[in-house]
């Protein structure tokens, strides 16, 4: 299917952000996904998050692997460079791009097939390296483009549209992330813009690898009875206890927040993630508590959503490697080549 340009429909004056851009400037080509696909809602949330953050489009780089989800980077921020790579390999390409130029904001869009099967190893190592990027898994439990095979995130007992129910344990990217020392772990639902946009904004501002597992129902292959990734099932089983607001650096905080339930985490750039509602005893910076909470909810058949874990003190890839603040792709060649005299000198070691 060819990529289709979105028709420009002039509406009433749209609100503008600090750069004078409207949310339309953060959109891309027309989606070619199925009508009602959860992924399109995620795309819209991403456009909104970048719009609200006033991120210059040119400072964004968007990457993806292969699959329905991986098509979506063409549908947002048309002014950003994009890279639709190979199945499961997006994390490696994003790592290299980030290594070469740390000055851009990297967002990777992937799916459960892309990230939890063929690309699981790369995802895990990108988490370990704490590559500074947003990594969104649009998780629907099935392979859409190949017509509905179960993926590694399918729950035990969940049935595909055709065939036998799944008997294998699912891979939960949040639990994987917790075990690997991930610094930002969130789960959300494509149908919940109110929750997803602040999480995306916090992820962009997070200093390190921000993993967002977005349950994003597949209307064509996984929205039926027996599916645990359907709109209906998710709405019935979601537990939104870990609620948080993203408070950007420059905007004064107006809302009065009840002090008994609030926890704040100051992001690297000075902006604040404010948890406005937390379950009793929950601490989003305590790895073991988070794990215990998620497991407890799972055992009751519930899916906890929100920004579940956050650690702003970790060092990201470039800090670990002491690279300069500007991109390595901008270091002038004169600084990189030791020159003829030095070559003569160093060859004394080879005599």
């Amino acid at each position: 299917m060819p990529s289709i340009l979105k028709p420009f429909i002039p509406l009433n004056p749209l609100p503008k952000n600090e750069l004078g851009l409207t949310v339309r400037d953060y959109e891309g080509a027309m989606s070619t996904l199925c009508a009602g696909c959860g992924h399109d809602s995620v795309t819209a949330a991403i456009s909104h998050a970048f719009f609200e953050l006033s991120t210059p489009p040119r400072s964004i780089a968007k990457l993806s692997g292969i699959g329905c989800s991986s098509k979506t980077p063409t549908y947002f921020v048309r002014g950003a460079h994009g890279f639709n790579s190979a199945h499961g390999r997006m994390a490696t390409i994003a790592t290299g791009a980030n290594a070469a130029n740390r000055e851009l904001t990297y967002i990777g869009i992937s799916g459960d097939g892309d990230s939890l099967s063929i690309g699981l190893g790369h995802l895990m190592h990108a988490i370990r390296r704490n590559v500074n990027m947003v990594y969104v898994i649009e998780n629907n439990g099935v392979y859409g483009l190949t017509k509905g095979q179960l993926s590694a995130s399918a729950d035990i007992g969940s049935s595909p549209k055709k065939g036998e129910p799944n008997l294998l344990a699912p891979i939960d990217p949040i639990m994987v992330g917790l075990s690997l020392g991930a610094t930002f772990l969130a789960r959300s639902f494509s149908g919940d813009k109110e929750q997803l946009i602040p999480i995306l904004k916090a992820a962009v501002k997070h200093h390190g690898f921000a993993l967002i597992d977005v349950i994003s129902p597949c209307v064509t292959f996984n929205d039926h009875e027996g599916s645990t990734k359907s709109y209906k099932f998710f709405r019935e089983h979601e537990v939104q206890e870990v609620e948080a607001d993203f408070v950007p650096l420059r905007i004064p905080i107006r809302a009065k927040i009840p002090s008994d339930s609030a926890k704040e985490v100051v992001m690297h750039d000075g902006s604040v993630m404010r948890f406005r509602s937390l379950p009793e005893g929950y601490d989003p910076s305590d790895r073991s508590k988070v794990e215990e909470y998620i497991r407890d909810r799972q055992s009751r058949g519930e899916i906890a959503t929100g920004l579940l874990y956050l650690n702003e003190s970790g060092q990201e890839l470039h800090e670990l490697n002491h690279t300069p603040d500007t991109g390595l792709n901008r270091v002038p060649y004169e600084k990189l080549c030791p020159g003829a005299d030095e070559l003569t000198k160093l060859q004394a070691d080879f005599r």
Partner: protein
Amino acid sequence: MTMTEKAKVRSQVNDFSIKLANVNGTGSSSANGLLVQAIFRMGIPVSGKNLFPSNIQGLPTWYEIRINASGYTARALDYDLVVAMNAQTYVEDIQEVTSGGYLLYDSSWPLDPDLEREDITFLGVPLAAMCLEAFSKPRERILMKNVAYAGAVVALVGVDIDVVANLLAENFARNEALRDSNQRALRLGYEYAMTNFDCPLSFRLESLHENDDSILIDGNTAAALGCLYAGATVAGWYPITPATAVMDNFTKLCATYRRELIANDDPLAKPEYKNNYLIIQAEDEIASIGMVLGAGWSGARAFTSTSGPGISLMSELLGLGYYTEIPAVIIDVQRVGPSTGMPTRTQQGDILMCAYASHGDTKHILLFPANPHECFEFAVACFDLAERFQTPVFMLSDLDIGMNDWVVPKLSWDDNFIPDRGRVLSDDDLAGIPEFFRYTNEDDHFIAPRTIPGSDAKGAYFVRGSGHDKFGRYTETPDSYQEVIDRLKLKHAAAAAYVPTPVIERRKKATVGVITIGSCDLAVREALVELDEQGLVCDFLRVRGFPFVEDVRAFVEEHNRCFVVEQNRDAQLRSLIAIETGVAIEKMTSVLAYGGFPLSAKQVVDSVLTQMEIS
């Protein structure tokens, strides 16, 4: 034991070879390297070939030293002196001594009389016994045995003992205890040989001045230097024999030459620095090439180093790099395949795989260095080619070049060198054009200008490994798809004029042509001298780059018969020449060596002569 007079007296100055049989993991390689370095410093052309097992400790390992004043230092197959330090391999090691030659063994234990040979001389040196007496620590007794046999060899073949002593002093400058132990061990072996044998033997060394403008270096170190000088800033890699030392060396070089201290007024502050490089040890080779492509997309010079199994894993993404036109440099230090094969043995088995790596119609640019000097120069060239032609470029070295020490001309650098960054549009360039489409506006070489992420939004585009038209848009339309893929073929062909030219040497009255590649170079050149003496005059061509220039086709056409010498079973270079130049494959006769040891001239001569007789 006294020396026995043998009927056949060999007398060669600066023309002989030594084989040292050791147990791996016992520290022998530094003693063997010491001998090679000392001979090099005496100004005599020399090579050291390490024939080692894929193992850490306990298995047989051999080291061969070839000395040849004319510079023919390819692997020799006849050994004038064998140092047999491994009882497990006595039988075969004794058989390998050339008739009239010598065998040095550890006479601390008696030699099985069944192993005796009438036509060679046995030189017993009680190495273990001497070291047991001279050294107290168990580990030292084992290690110093190596330096002691080196001392005996020094005496036997006339290595300048002062040169060796200086080397030990330099190597252990910071460790007085080790330096003294080494010096003592050296003297132990040396004095024993001087006292008990007629030193030097009839074959021996005499100082020359052949190496004044040369260095002794392995190809992996030289390749790493090339990457440093080319300005590579990002590297992704996964450990693999025999390529690991490329990245080890690059890492060391970067720590020395790419670290910027940050000025700080506070004299007591801990010094802070910034690294103008980022090397990532990846989770596998797939990730390595993914990182390289990501960095190349972002406008950094990036590379990976690997061997055949790594290329197999990288194949998918190499196709992505080719189709989306992203620069990348891959250094393939070839080893014996297929599968795990023999990781510590050499071969040229990746030629076809690299030429066409990945599914679908793909063709890559390949450079074939023959020695460490070319590893340095070609590594630099790879980065220019990759950025100019916006595509993955391979340098195909091999284990023999990469891990063995070679005497090569000193490396030189032109400070006026400006890297060729290829066609990249700046914001100003973008401002001057109405619209930007990724694969349009190609030049004479079919190269379309690219933009780098972070550019003005006008230059933003979507890289896609899926079918795309020249505008960079998704397509499933035959004509639009073909238009791009056809241009890629022309672009690849255009690179022929930019890869290193073949080395061609024509001789008067030559009747056949000999074509070769990479590390076969020295052995083939030596073979041509031998063939000439036997009445067969040959022209010579060494391929150094792919795509091939017209000269390669012409060379095959102008000879009634060509031999193609290469180190693989399936005559991969011959096939590639036939496929790509259209010459009749029957015009080329293969000379193949693929057992895993470096090529020797004898193998080439024997094969050529046999095949000449047959026809």
